[in-house]
């Protein structure tokens, strides 16, 4: 395994220095604790959006810092949740007086670290809420697992909520919107190859030359099932069917309750989808997948959605939430409403995503 790196332990740091040099008009990078923030932060009167998680998923999250998306991103080590001090320092840096929303992918490490950060921030009188993204239908139940992982919907939630913050939504409304996006998003991924973590330089898992892993997350975790490679159309159908056939999913998550001044358990249930619903279809590359292959997948996905009676009214195709050099893809379908569409179309200007500005 070969990589364009120097010392593995400098991977995250040097990559962020590169970002800072390349995009000084858009963002700034701070170390110890490490976070990336909008060059013009704090934006007074605007709700600040912060996300973060292990590195290795680039462009997520640092590539999405800027106008119309995130105010700050907290990168951890590769595939390792960042720490509460990073999240707290970022919150202080970008707080524009209208409150802060942490967008958190549902992994035990991320959840615990962001919970600690929320407690620390609240103790310092920062108005922080946090919303979990848990959209991976590969994880069937939440009773016997950590609950569904946060994957592709994270990207969509950051875009939509970022636009809402820019338009002046208040903190509670953005938190509601973020929760709604999450409840309407469903994802499923497949790996053709393992990824290789820089500090290890060996593939995280071994796959035979004709094997694939179905139902993977974004950290090189093995998936739910290993199978013989199939055609792109068959793989797309398996991914899409897992999403289409997903049953109503209910889980208990912890959210900060402002009136109670602490975390409370909240039960959330995904709404059912109905024929005629409008969808955003997101075909995501895992980092080592050629763009042309993603279009082959999209081609089949579009047909399958049409057969199910769903309308794709927006799409996103490219490598936005990756697992280092892994080959493979994930599909995310988000059921849209008018408000989400308006916010999706709003301008965005970040290192890795730009339109309308």
């Amino acid at each position, binding site marked *: 395994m070969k990589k364009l790196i120097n010392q593995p332990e400098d991977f995250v740091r040097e990559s962020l220095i590169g970002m800072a040099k390349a995009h000084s008009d858009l963002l700034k990078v701070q170390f110890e604790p490490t976070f990336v923030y909008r060059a013009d932060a704090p934006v007074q009167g605007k709700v600040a959006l912060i996300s973060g998680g*292990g590195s290795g998923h680039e462009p997520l999250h640092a590539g999405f810092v800027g106008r119309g998306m995130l105010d700050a991103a907290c990168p951890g*080590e590769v595939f390792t*949740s960042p720490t509460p001090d990073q999240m707290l320092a970022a919150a202080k840096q970008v707080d524009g007086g209208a409150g802060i929303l942490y967008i958190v992918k549902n992994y035990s*490490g991320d959840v615990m670290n962001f919970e600690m950060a929320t407690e620390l921030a609240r103790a310092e009188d920062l108005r922080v809420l946090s919303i979990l993204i848990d959209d991976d239908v590969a994880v069937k139940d939440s009773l016997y697992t950590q609950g569904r992982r946060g994957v592709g919907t994270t990207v969509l939630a950051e875009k939509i909520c970022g636009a809402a913050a820019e338009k002046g939504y208040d903190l509670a409304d953005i938190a509601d919107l973020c929760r709604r996006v999450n409840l309407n998003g469903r994802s499923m991924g497949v790996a053709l190859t393992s990824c290789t973590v820089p500090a290890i330089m060996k593939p995280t898992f071994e796959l035979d030359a004709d094997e694939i892993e179905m139902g993977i*997350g974004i*950290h090189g975790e093995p998936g739910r099932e290993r199978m013989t490679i199939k055609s792109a159309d068959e793989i797309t159908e398996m991914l899409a069917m897992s999403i289409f056939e997903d049953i109503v999913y209910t889980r208990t998550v912890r959210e900060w309750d402002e009136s109670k001044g602490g975390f409370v358990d909240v039960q959330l249930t995904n709404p059912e989808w109905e024929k005629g619903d409008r969808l955003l279809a997101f075909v995501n590359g895992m980092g080592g997948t050629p763009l042309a292959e993603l279009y082959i997948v999209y081609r089949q996905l579009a047909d399958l959605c049409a057969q199910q009676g769903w309308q794709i009214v927006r799409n996103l195709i490219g490598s936005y939430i990756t697992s280092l050099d892994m080959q493979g893809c994930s599909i995310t379908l988000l059921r849209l409403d008018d408000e989400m569409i308006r916010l999706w179309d709003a301008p965005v200007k970040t290192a890795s995503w730009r339109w309308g500005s």
Partner: protein
Amino acid sequence: MMTKEQILQWLEQFADAIAQNKEYLTQLDAAIGDADHGINMDRGFQKVASQLPKLAEQDISSVLKTVSITLISSVGGASGPLYGTFFLRASTAVAGKQELSNEDLASLLQAGLDGVLQRGKAQLGDKTMIDALSPAVTAFTQAIGQGKTTSEAIQQATAAAEQGMQATIPMLAKKGRASYLGDRSIDHQDPGATSVYLMLKSLSEVLGMTSD
């Protein structure tokens, strides 16, 4: 009985054990997680080890609190908040003590365990570090209740941790990343339970070196 020096020796010993088992822990995590547990723990405990000389002047509770803050701000992942919370609660449990009686040590361990349970919401049998930590705390408390020496009690706790660690092998994971694997998590030893065993083992090595 356990002195401040022994606390420092324990932390050093544990940091060493982590460094020596860095690859092993990471391999265990590669099988059912994301191949970083050894790297995470080592990053944190190298930092702890480098701070130990400066901590010689502080009392036990402050030492444990510094360890907690260091781990929380440098380990990340799941193990960062969990080990961080363990040492934070441990620190609070022994506030003001210059030396630890067996009862003090028991409440240190119990408080640490309670913290990890609260933070992680895992239960015994979920295939996590709880499966090594919880039996260890029970064994220690029982042993001192039976009048065993610190050294004997901690050796029984370590044995319990080792058994608990091994008992994770046939378990189906219900918390942490391994839970995503469903049945495929079976037949693998939990990395967090393994690092907890190393923590107990380091403690018993330090306490075994002295007469109580």
